[in-house]
């Protein structure tokens, strides 16, 4: 390989590895702040029936967590099949424990 070839491959590699900017992470941050503010506002305002508020708060939390795990923890990037399986497994057991505990105290 000549020196010129080497330089060419090097440039090609450099090009394909262009760094992502901070923009999309700042958008995720602002999105998280907004979801949090909505959740706080819903509780402070009150008035609406409790069951609806509870479901609404949980929905806000789940959306925020999914977005943060997707972008900040890179779960949406390719090559993350096993991590996703690990996390779904963890959340499945966690969810089972929560449902069981609630079932046990409510009925």
């Amino acid at each position, binding site marked *: 390989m000549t020196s010129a070839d080497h330089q060419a491959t090097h440039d090609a590699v450099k090009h394909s590895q262009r760094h992502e900017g901070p923009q999309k992470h700042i958008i995720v941050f602002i999105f998280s702040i907004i979801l949090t503010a909505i959740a706080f506002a819903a509780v402070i305002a009150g008035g609406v029936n409790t069951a609806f508020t509870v479901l609404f*708060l949980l929905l806000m939390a789940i959306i925020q967590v999914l977005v943060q795990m997707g972008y900040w923890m890179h779960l949406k990037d390719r090559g993350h099949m096993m991590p996703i399986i690990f996390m779904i497994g963890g959340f499945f057991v966690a969810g089972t424990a929560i449902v069981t505990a609630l079932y046990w105290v409510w009925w």
Partner: protein
Amino acid sequence: MSTTHAETVDGALPHEPEKATLEGRNKVLSFWLFLGGEAVLFGTLFATFLALRNQTNEGPTANELFSFTTTALATLILLVSSLTSVFAVQAMHRHNVAKLRVWLIVTVILGLGFLGLEIYEFSEYVIAEKFGMTTSAFSSAFYTLVGFHGAHVAFGVLWISVLIGQLFKKGLTVVTAPKVYVSAMYWHFIDVVWVFIFTVVYLLGKVG
């Protein structure tokens, strides 16, 4: 060429140094398995809390104790620290060790701020509100869940501080990069758990 860089064929640190070696990739993958286990740990603590949160034993209730201001401030601090650890990893991908260290230091300072706020909050509950670990089933479940999260923050602060020291000593290499990446994942996970804590413990406590 700087000797602090683990050399590839042409002597440069690869673009994503945390994934450059098999050991690095294995470290990242197995850390996800650990985080899956952490999800189970916190899931069971949430289950306990949800089951016992109304058993106040004539002690203070969630609605009497919690303040929106403290919760919002803690949430903001942790959310910003999660963003600064994203910036740390981005600086690492640009091989900018100086910036990487600065963002990690900012993350640690914010983590300490969160811990300080939580210690203040707990001490208010214990001293002013007479809400101790053994006051009620609600208080035990509350301190166990939120305290476990606080302990994770404390561990993260120690861990990242040690990593900052290592970055000063050894620089950014294919050995130190996976450690930084994995610690950032840990820090994001702590923030993710906090999202559920402020929702389920604090906001639901205010709803009733």
